[in-house]
């Protein structure tokens, strides 16, 4: 494919964003390369979600530039839909799937296989969904098929469906927002495996998480955000899990002292 010639899959330059008087992001420079898993780390309110939402076209930054595959994005015309067309997908834990709908509808929502009148090829969508579950995310759970409702699935399985959807639509970059929060240990293991599959098939991933050991087991590089600024950037080979953890604890403690807790 032609677009394998790019240097950075995503590059965000000098991104700033404020909400009223609150500065959410200050001069952020952030990159993701091809086939790279980046762990985006930071306390609550550090600006992780804001950064991701800018990248996903949910809202524009006050200042800065975004490049996707080295092409500059017209931020005034940017949207989630354009991000999808550029094969960038985000999986938000609570917002990824419609609970009451069957899996096949969830996979194809917004990208239905239809005829000219908008009527859905249900058979095709079901077959493709079964294929995604078996081949892309390796679903082996008994009793779950394309007709299952999302509410019948465990938290880890839901993440799996959303990740499978992103992979099916050939996303080059899959952004996971707190994919393991509120999951049991066994379920976390499933999600970690899904992320490893993203890497194995040559795609990239941004994983936002509080959990250092989970991040450490999958990410190639770590970016630490603190109150709207990048305060640390490490390659996995240059840092151990305990070093990374202690760095984050130091930041958290300093912040706590500053606000006088």
């Amino acid at each position, binding site marked *: 494919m032609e677009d394998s010639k790019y240097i950075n899959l995503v590059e965000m330059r000098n991104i700033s964003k404020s909400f009223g008087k609150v500065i959410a992001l200050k001069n952020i420079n952030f990159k993701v390369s091809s086939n790279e898993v980046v762990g985006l780390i930071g306390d609550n309110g550090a600006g992780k979600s804001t950064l991701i939402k800018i990248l996903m076209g949910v809202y524009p930054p006050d200042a800065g530039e975004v490049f996707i595959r080295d092409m500059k994005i017209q931020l005034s015309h940017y949207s989630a839909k354009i991000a999808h067309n550029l094969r960038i997908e985000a999986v938000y834990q609570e917002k990824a799937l419609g609970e009451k709908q069957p899996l096949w509808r969830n996979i194809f929502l917004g990208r239905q296989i239809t005829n000219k*009148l908008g009527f859905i090829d249900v058979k095709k969508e079901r077959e493709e969904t079964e294929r995604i579950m078996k081949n892309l995310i390796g679903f082996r759970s008994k009793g779950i098929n394309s007709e299952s409702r999302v509410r019948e699935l465990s938290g880890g399985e839901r993440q799996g469906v959303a990740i499978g959807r992103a992979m099916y639509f050939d996303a080059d970059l899959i952004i996971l927002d707190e994919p393991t929060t509120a999951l049991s240990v066994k379920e976390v293991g499933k999600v970690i495996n899904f992320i490893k599959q993203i890497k194995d098939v040559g795609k990239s991933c941004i994983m936002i998480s509080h959990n250092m050991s989970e991040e450490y087991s999958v990410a190639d590089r770590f970016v630490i955000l603190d109150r709207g600024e990048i305060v640390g950037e490490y390659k996995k080979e240059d840092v151990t899990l305990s070093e990374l953890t202690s760095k984050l604890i130091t930041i958290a403690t300093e912040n706590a002292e500053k606000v006088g807790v």
Partner: protein
Amino acid sequence: MSLKKSTFFNARVYKTYAIILVYVLLMGIFMITAPKAFTGYQIYLAFLSTIPFSLIMALGLTFVIVTGEIDLSFPSTMALSGFVFMYTYIHLKNSIVALLACIVVGIIIGLINGLIVAKIKVPSIVATLATSFIWAGLAVIVSGGIQIAIPESRGSLFYNVLVGRIAGLIPAQSLWAFGFAIIMAFILNRNRFGEHVMFIGDNRETSKMLGVNVDRTLISVFILNGALASFSSVLLGLEYVTWWPTQGPGFLLITIAAVFIGGTSIAGGEGTILGTVIGAFIVGSITAGVVASGAEGFWTQLIVGVVMLLAVVFNTLLRDRKS
């Protein structure tokens, strides 16, 4: 084949079976309590002539409720657009133009409701309660509060196509209602638009993230409801060859009841057209059944209430049973 089996056993399908069973039981009871009326075919033909008015509106309302919204203004839409039909019919003497003018009024009302709900974000129950008073008030003002009769329409081709008796028996309005029901069922279950309607009611954030145009879909749903209410007003006006200013309001509660009895959730994200059809027949049959059974007419409300309560309790219990 395993796919079929799981479809057969899911709660959604159970609910539809249950609601059909309720209707059959109800008819069974009436056959015992009012054998004279309910073992003949006349009463069923009567149902086919009266139920379509609320059924057609219930179809549109099902879509609205599936999105997680509500529309309280469809009865006054019926009143106002029904007046426009009558007025145009009498003054222009052109039934097709009158029909189109009436539907345009329904569409404009739906558009206004939809814009207020989708763009200004006023909760639909409040917005449509307010607009409901406006359309109802407007209907009284423009008509001077006087009823209008069009006996001359009887027997015309237009009359026969919309509310005539096919083979001298079957009320044409029932075919219109069933026709709409089939189309709407296909749209809800098999069309991109219907899928968006479901997802908006289920999880609006998900819909947005996946590129569904939530505002446009919501506005379309309100327009659809307005258009169906206005079409129903034409059928009603022709059936009774009369329009009167308070024609609509009597339909408010029975239409909403039909949708909920049919298993559509007020929380949005689920609902079936088949359920709504049966719901409308249940509500519409109870009045006739109660009266024919010799009970006082005011038992009707109580029985509709009991049936509706049983239906929603049952639906809630099924819904909460997470596999």
